C-alpha cells in the first residue's frame, strides 16, 4: 500500500535522506529505528508533506503519487502522522478541532458531515482507548498539556481519523512508563488488517508493547538493515555503533 523509492530530502543545502527505499504492505506494522540525526523525523515529514524540503524519488500510496499532494490531501487519502512534538494551538477548542478535521476529510471524500451529537459519541469511544477524560475535549488543542497528554491526544486523533496508514514519529519520546503503556495499548487496539503503521523510534521500549512485523535501521539517510522484530532487540543490546559506517549496498540483506 506504500512504496517509497529512492527518496531524497534536503533542507537548504543539507541532504538528509539519501535514497531511501521502503515498502509497506496491507495491515503491516513497520518500525524504523535509528540514531539521532539519521533522518527519522524527516522521513515522517516527507510523508506528511511538510513545506521546506527539497524532495526527490517517489512515494506511491494506494496507487497514487503522494508527493503530488498537499498535506490535507494526504490526510484525505488516508495518511495520518502522529507528531513527535504536537503543536499547541491556544484558543482552538480540541473538540472543535477534531470535528473540523474529521468533517474536512469526510467532505473531501464526498461523505456527509458528522453532527455534533454523533461526533461526541465517536469521540467518547476514542477517548476510552487512551484513558482520557471528557475535559480533554473542552481544552484548547494541546495547550498546557503534559507530554503524555499530548501523545495521547495524537492517538485519540488517530482513532477518530481511522487512517489507512499511520506514521507515528517518536510517539514514545517524553513518556513515562504508565503513559507509554496507555499509548501503546491505544495503538494496538487500532491495528487491523486494513490499516498499516510506520512506527519511528529511537528506542526499543515502545516495540516491547507494539510488536512490529518488520524493523528497519535508518542510518545517514538510508535504510541499512531490515529484519523482523528481533532486530530491535539486537539494536537495544549493541546500539547503532555497528551500523554507523555500514555499507549501504548491504541494505535489505538478512542479518
Amino acid at each position, binding site marked *: 500500500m506504500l512504496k517509497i523509492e529512492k527518496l531524497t530530502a534536503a533542507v537548504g543545502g543539507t541532504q538528509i535522506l539519501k535514497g531511501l527505499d521502503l515498502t509497506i504492505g496491507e495491515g503491516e506494522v513497520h518500525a524504523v529505528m535509528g540514531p539521532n540525526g539519521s533522518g527519522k523525523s524527516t522521513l515522517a515529514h516527507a510523508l506528511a508533506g511538510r513545506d521546506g524540503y527539497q524532495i526527490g524519488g517517489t512515494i506511491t500510496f494506494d496507487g497514487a503519487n503522494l508527493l503530488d499532494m498537499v498535506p*490535507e490531501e494526504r490526510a484525505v487519502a488516508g495518511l495520518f502522522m502522529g507528531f513527535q512534538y504536537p*503543536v499547541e494551538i491556544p484558543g*482552538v477548542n480540541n473538540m472543535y478541532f477534531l470535528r473540523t478535521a*474529521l468533517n474536512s476529510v469526510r467532505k473531501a471524500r464526498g461523505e456527509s458531515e458528522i453532527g455534533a451529537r454523533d461526533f461526541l459519541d465517536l469521540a467518547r469511544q476514542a477517548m476510552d482507548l487512551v484513558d482520557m477524560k471528557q475535559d480533554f475535549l473542552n481544552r484548547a488543542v494541546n495547550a498546557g498539556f503534559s507530554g503524555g497528554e499530548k501523545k495521547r491526544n495524537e492517538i485519540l486523533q488517530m482513532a477518530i481519523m481511522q487512517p489507512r496508514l499511520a506514521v507515528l514519529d517518536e510517539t514514545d519520546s517524553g513518556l513515562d512508563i504508565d503513559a507509554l503503556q496507555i499509548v501503546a495499548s491505544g495503538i494496538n487496539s487500532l491495528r487491523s488488517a486494513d490499516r498499516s503503521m510506520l512506527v519511528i523510534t529511537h528506542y526499543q521500549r515502545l516495540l516491547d508493547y507494539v510488536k512490529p512485523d518488520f524493523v528497519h535501521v535508518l542510518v545517514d539517510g538510508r535504510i541499512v538493515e531490515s529484519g523482523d522484530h528481533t532486530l530491535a532487540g539486537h539494536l537495544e543490546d549493541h546500539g547503532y555503533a555497528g551500523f554507523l559506517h555500514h555499507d549501504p549496498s548491504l541494505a535489505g540483506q538478512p542479518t
Partner: protein
Amino acid sequence: MTVATDDTGQALGDKRAPGAVVYPTRKDEGWRYAPHQDLRRLVFGPPPSEIAEIPAELEARIPDVGGPVIVVVNGRVDRSRSDLDRLPAGLHIRSLADVLDDPPDAVATHLQSAGAGPVDAFEALGRIHGRDGAYIHLEENANLDQPIQLVDISIPARASDATCTGVVVHLSDGSEATMVETHLGAGTSFGGSTTRTSVTMGARSSLTHLVLQDAPAEQIQLSRIEVVQMGESEYRGRSFNLGASYGRIDYQVRLIEEEATADLSGLYFGSGNQTLDQQVNIIHHAGNCTSRQRFRGVLDGQSTGVFSGGIAVSPGANGTDAEQTNHNLLLSTRAEVNSQPRLEILADEVACAHGATVGQLDEDALYYLRSRGVPADEARSLLIAGFADQTVDEVEIENLRTWVIARLGHGHA
C-alpha cells in the same frame, strides 16, 4: 493634553494657557498614529434637528441583548426607539438633554472642563456639542438582570459632518449592571462621531461595560471612557474596536479608593487602511487596588494597530497589583502594530507586570491542522479565530459573542 508645539513646530504660546483648546498633533504621545489631516477635516456641530432615517440593514446589525435600549442618532436621542420609561426598579435612564437644566452631580461633573492645562480639542468639542445622549443612574444596591444597551449611530448628512454624544453613568453604592455601548453608522460620506462616557462607581458597585465599535470604513469614531472608582468597586471593560477608518478607544480609569478593581480586555481587528487605536490609562491613586489590561490585535492589509497602555501608581498607593499584556497577530507584511507600555510607579510595594508580543500565523500550527485534513484557508481562519476568541470568550452575553464572531468572519462558536 499637553501640547508644546503644533504641526509646523511653532510654539503654541498663549494656547498653552488653562482652558485653551488645542488640536492634538503627531507630537502628542497619545495621538502619534492618528490621521491628523482627516481629523482636521471633521466639522463638528450640534445634532441636526431631524432624526435621520436608519436604513434597514443597519437596524438589522444592532445586536439584540435584551434589556432597556437607548438609541442616539447623530448626537440626538431617538425617543421612538428608546426605552426611557417602564424601567426595572432602581434604574433611571434620561436623555442627557432633559437633565441639563437641573443637572445631577454626575452630569455637572461630566460637563465641567477638566483640569488646569490646555484642553484637547475633541474633548472640548464633546463638551460643547455633546449635550444629548444618556444619563443612566442606578440606585443603591440595585442589581439589574438585563444589560442596558446604548446604541450610538452616525449617519453624516453631508461630507465631513461630525457629531458628539455624551453618556453619564452613575452607579450608587452596591449597585450592579451590565452596559453595552455599540457604535454603528451608515452612509458613504466621510464623517465622524465622538462619544464621551463618564462612569462614576460608588463603593462596592460593579459594572461590566462592553464597547462595540463598528462604524463604516468612511468614518472616524472616537470614544473616550472616563471611569472613577470608589472603594471595592469592580469595573470590567470589554472593547471590540473593529470598524471606522480611524477607531479610537481611550480609557481613563482612576482608582481613588482602596480595593477597587479595573479589568480591561479588548480586541482590535483591522484590515484595509484602518487605524485602530487603544489608549489606556489606569491611575492607582489609592493603595491595594488591582488593574488588568489584556488587549489583542489582528491586523491585515495595510492596517495599523496601536496599543498604548499606561499604568500610573501614585505616591503612597502601596499594595497596587497591576498587569498588562498585549498580543498581536500580523496577517500581512504591510500591516503594522505599535505597542507601548507606559509605567509610572511612584510607590513602593507594588506588583506591576507587562508583556507584549507581535507575531505572524504559526506555520507549525498551520501544518499540524493541514496534516489532519483541514484545508489551508480554513486552517488559517481557524488560527485567526483561535487568537481572537481568547478575547471574545470573555464576553458573557451569548448574543454578543455571536455578533462579534460573525463580524470577524468566522462562523464557529
